């Protein structure tokens, strides 16, 4: 059986389930395998790792789980919980799920490392070391709470013919175009509270999903975008992501990575691209190279 960790409302989960069923496989979408109605049990010691997952209506021992698609972090419905209890049980569930996924010997897409698992939304600044190591550019970025340096950054942008800058808080995916004088006045005011992150403006991005060694572009990519595919593959491999969404855009006449989503936003892709992603995911889960591509940390899992 294939386990699809996510919501019934997630079109990626339902698409993969449909595709797996069509190929004769059993698949089940589960929002959280560590709370009722699931019965989860995992024994771990120095030499063994054995887990069992069962529901009232069936029992699937882990030996029969052939692959896992991870689309969510095992969230818990807050209804009925006190806030502090909810935070605790959520942290416990996430901790258990991260480790259990790492222990499985079957293909897991994605088998997240903790630094990614616990930060579902990450600024492009976070990804810079990895991207740089793979030969991928990111837009020039300034983080500053110094007014005069910020205004010098603005002057530099203007001298290069840029219409303004993008204000991107480091902890949210919101961004604001700074084009007018009053926008910059606002930035200086914000800087009295916190350093701000400013980047170069860029053209409309194109997005691509790297799924294993497949590239699914949302729209026809520009000619030079395909030239970076090998670098994108190296990045996905280095970050341990078999399924990752990357946005590329032109800034200062070069193609830059402007966003990385390690929990890809499947719903943002066109119908044709979604079909391509589902096909690539299914191939990744059931294909002949699935196990070798998606190794686990388990030394001895039975």
């Amino acid at each position, binding site marked *: 059986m294939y386990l699809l960790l996510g919501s019934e409302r997630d079109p990626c989960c339902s698409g993969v389930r449909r595709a797996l069923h069509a190929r004769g496989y059993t698949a089940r979408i589960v929002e959280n395998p560590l709370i009722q109605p699931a019965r989860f049990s995992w024994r771990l010691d120095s030499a063994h790792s054995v887990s069992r997952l069962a529901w009232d209506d069936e029992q699937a021992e882990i030996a029969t789980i052939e692959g896992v698609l991870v689309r969510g972090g095992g969230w818990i419905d807050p209804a009925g919980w006190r806030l502090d209890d909810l935070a605790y049980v959520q942290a416990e569930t996430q901790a258990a799920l991260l480790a259990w996924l790492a222990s499985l010997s079957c293909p897991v897409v994605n088998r997240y490392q903790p630094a990614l698992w616990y930060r579902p939304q990450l600024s492009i600044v976070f990804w810079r070391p990895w991207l740089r190591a793979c030969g991928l550019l990111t837009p020039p970025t300034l983080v500053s709470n110094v007014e005069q340096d910020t205004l010098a950054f603005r002057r530099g942008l203007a001298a290069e013919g840029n219409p303004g800058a993008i204000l991107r808080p480091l*902890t949210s995916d919101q961004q604001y175009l700074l084009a007018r004088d009053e926008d910059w006045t606002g930035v200086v005011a914000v800087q009295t509270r916190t350093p701000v992150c400013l980047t170069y403006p860029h053209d409309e991005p194109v997005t691509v999903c790297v799924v294993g060694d497949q590239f699914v572009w949302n729209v026809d990519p520009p000619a030079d975008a395909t030239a970076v595919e090998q670098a994108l593959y190296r990045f996905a491999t280095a*970050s341990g992501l078999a399924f990752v969404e990357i946005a590329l855009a032109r800034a200062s006449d070069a193609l830059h990575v402007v966003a990385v989503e390690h929990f890809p936003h499947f719903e943002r892709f066109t119908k044709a691209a979604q079909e391509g992603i589902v096909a690539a995911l299914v191939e990744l889960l059931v294909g002949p190279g699935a196990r070798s591509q998606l190794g686990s940390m388990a030394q001895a899992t039975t």
Partner: protein
Amino acid sequence: MILVCGGLADVVTELVCARLSACEYAYRFLDLGVYPAGFQVNWYCHDAYPEGYLSGPDWRIDLAELTGVYVRYLGAEGRVPLPNVPQESVPALYAEYDAGISLLLEDLPCLVVNRLGPGMSNHSKPYQALLVRECGLLTPPTLVTNDPDSARRFFDEWHGEVIYKSLSGVRSIVRRLGPEQLERLPLLRHGPAQFQAYIPGDNVRVHTVDDRVFATRVRSTAVDYRYARREGADVQMDAVELPPHVAESCLRLARQMGLHFAGIDLKLTPRDEYYCFEVNPSPGFLFYEQHTYQPISAALADLLHQGELTSPTV
């Protein structure tokens, strides 16, 4: 130049600063309790390491001058309240402050003790157990479950010698599973818990500082010696030498996790076996140094002074 990021009220950060001063190693202190108030931060990055500077009330350092950074992040309780900020906005601002610092440190080419990313395994004890196994240390028989029947079977299998503790980084007191807890097992259906076979013996706290190992044997009758006094139990601490293979495993574990400085919790059983429970990426080592006089802070100061060019890892 060394940069220390932490809180003035944090005794561990205070000890690091005191040791750097005693060693006459120049350092600058970025007080995360008030940051960014009173500090200037300005860094730019494009296709290389970040460039820029940090400045405080009476100092300024170019990022290129840094040889080593020591950082201990603070919770909300360690910070000076923000004036004139609506209470509901405070957590978001703190998160933005920490993100700015951690993203900078993550990408600096100098030694950073420790970068945030590698230490995040500390949020999942069973994940750390998987790493521990790879490094040749023993991990206790463990059950993670939301199934009351499985928990009961595990309890019976170990003849009632079972403890329970948190799975996550949420600090919890290790306690024995007793009749009172057994009655509450049906609540497990709402979320998983971690149970472990009770491992008898003495706790051994190991601090690794780059390639140096400092081990402290802790003798206590308390199940969790950190809370021994609360239980009316005594604690005796002594510096000890680890068998070479155990010391090497500890170093390998810290290296594999990308930690230049780590606190590793072991237990030495009456059969001379070493079990490993968890790895702390930001250890509060003051307690151990005070009791054993091991030069942990001096080793850390030397490491920060020597520095090294490291490839940032995430």
